[in-house]
């Protein structure tokens, strides 16, 4: 008899515990926190934390609370796979946000397919990710192709660039960006002078720039992240390369300008997000981000923020935090973020949000033009 009471008490206690635990939904987040793109990965995590903090503040006493479980994917396929396995098996997250590098995301896509857990990437931009027929994968970011289509004509017509040299980081993102932009620019009447690549973490670009200078292009297109890009544009000035520069990557950020110094002046960049975008949602985000980290948000901060909001919207629509329910709720996404409205195509590709062409002037990205990312 006593035993039964004890057992009943135990069940009661633990049942109430599990109900209590269910009020907190864990969301897995895989970004590179070490390695050559760690800096950008950390901004994505920072943006994600803002999104979660906003929701948790709004949830009050009885609402659903969210908890981020952050794993370091190091931008490497193998590390990202083990991070995804750990999040699903050990932390039992019902949904994952990540990863950063497209190659790492591809690797994780087979894991989420195996365990049937949805994943949203706000960053990986390789065009074919959403063409692989993986129904658990969604992307709330522009692809290289979408960005190239939006801006190639503007670059040729407005900046009057005829002969263009392409410099890109030697990975699928850099190579993909260059091939998309060069084919779109050629279609708009531009001419390709040369295409050169460098490895992640390279510091000396003199050899590469010497070759570019010898080709005398009107414009130089660069696909690079903050670290590589800022060193590159500085060395352009050092070797006396005076061509117009335009790029893709996280260029419209305060850090880029700080690192590149005067060399940043006059550079054009095609980016999905700049902190100067004039939208009420963006003003709120910039303010919160500045209060939390004492710096201005960049492209990846916004990407992390958006991806988390999209996921949390889906969880709220699903009503129950299970992988299947969340996955079923994701296609109905209609989220208003700092850079526009996000929706998904049948294949899980995001569209409807804005991309902007900015010119760096006196340390701030001025918006020159704006285009809405449309599905194919």
């Amino acid at each position: 008899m006593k035993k039964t009471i004890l057992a009943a008490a135990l069940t009661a206690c633990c049942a109430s515990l599990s109900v209590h635990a269910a009020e907190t939904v864990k969301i897995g987040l895989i970004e590179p926190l070490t390695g050559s793109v760690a800096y950008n990965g950390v901004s994505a995590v920072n943006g994600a934390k803002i999104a979660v903090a906003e929701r948790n503040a709004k949830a009050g006493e009885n609402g659903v609370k969210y908890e981020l479980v952050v794993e370091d994917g190091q931008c490497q396929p193998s590390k990202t796979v083990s991070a995804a396995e750990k999040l699903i098996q050990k932390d039992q997250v019902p949904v994952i946000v990540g990863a950063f590098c497209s190659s790492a995301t591809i690797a994780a896509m087979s894991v989420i397919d195996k365990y049937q857990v949805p994943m949203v990437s706000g960053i990986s931009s390789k065009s074919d990710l959403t063409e692989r027929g993986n129904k658990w994968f969604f992307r709330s970011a522009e692809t290289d192709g979408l960005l190239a289509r939006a801006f190639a004509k503007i670059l040729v017509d407005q900046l009057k660039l005829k002969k263009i040299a392409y410099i890109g980081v030697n990975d699928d993102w850099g190579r993909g960006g260059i091939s998309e932009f060069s084919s779109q620019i050629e279609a708009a009447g531009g001419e390709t002078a040369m295409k050169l690549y460098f490895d992640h973490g390279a510091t000396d670009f003199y050899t590469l720039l010497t070759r570019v200078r010898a080709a005398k292009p009107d414009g130089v297109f660069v696909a690079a992240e903050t670290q590589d890009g800022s060193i590159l544009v500085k060395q352009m000035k050092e070797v006396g390369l005076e061509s117009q520069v335009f790029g893709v990557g996280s260029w419209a950020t305060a850090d880029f300008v700080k690192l590149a110094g005067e060399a940043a002046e006059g550079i054009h960049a095609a980016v999905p997000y700049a902190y100067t975008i004039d939208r009420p949602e963006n003003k709120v985000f910039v303010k919160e981000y500045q209060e939390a980290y004492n710096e201005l948000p960049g492209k990846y901060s916004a990407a992390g923020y958006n991806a988390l909001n999209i996921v949390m919207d889906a969880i709220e629509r699903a009503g129950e935090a299970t992988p299947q329910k969340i996955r079923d709720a994701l296609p109905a996404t209609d989220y208003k973020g700092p850079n526009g409205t996000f929706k998904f195509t049948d294949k899980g590709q995001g569209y409807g949000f804005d991309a902007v062409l900015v010119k760096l002037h006196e340390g701030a990205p001025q918006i020159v033009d704006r285009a809405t990312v449309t599905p194919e």
Partner: protein
Amino acid sequence: MFDLFLQFVLNGLVNGTFYALSALGLTLIFGLMRLVNFAHGEFYMMGGILGWVVTSQLGLDFFSGLVVVVAVMAAFGWLLDRFIIVRVRDKGPEPGILLTIGLAIFLTNTALLLVGTAPHKVVAPVSSAPLLLGPVIITKVRIFAVAVSILAIVGARLLIQKTKLGRAMRATFQDATAASLVGINTASIYASTFALGSALAATSGMLLGSIYVAQASIGGLISLKAFVVVILGGMGNFAGAILGGLILGVAEALWGGYVQTGTVDMVGFALVILILFFRPYGLFSIRAERA
């Protein structure tokens, strides 16, 4: 066309000098102590980060800053040897390798924790405006960095060859027992050597941080390149490391200039494979010579 070639060679030589300087600490510690220091790149990183702290945060000028950084890193190297490296001395190569790999991971993550992932700038003492030398372009800050590199290399060489401390170092590593019999305090000699190696790595980190950027996660890349240079020149061979650095710099520049820029990192490793195949003790190694 020839101008272009000159520019490539010049770029290669400048880079080669930097490679030589950043590999010097590694080859010195290996040559004198028989310790393969996998944390070498992290010492370089610490030099860069400390350089940023003293120049940008504390507002010291470059040279006073360099003195502070060298002093701090030499003390750090000294303590590291006296309290940690000493435990794996004379226990064969594996414990030393494991220890330094662990140390590298620890240092990188501590740096990430303290200063974060953002790249930082060391304030350079001279301008980075372009300078035309006939047909080729270089910047003042690069000429300055090459000059400081050469000074550091020559200084280290003189210290080992001409001073009493240097003689004691060489004696200790030829025969530690005999050295202690003639009254050399071998424990402090080991520590001095490790301090010297750490200080050299930090010098290159700070110097190159003023041309490129200083970053907490740069260590791994630096170690890799330094190993290429050291294997090219022969493990522990002082002059070999310098030539190895220059060869690597010029080979990368010419490969990038005339073949493909995306594959320059391959050049060094291809060279290493060839060297290990045909001259396993390095290009310039005479087997008996140490440092």
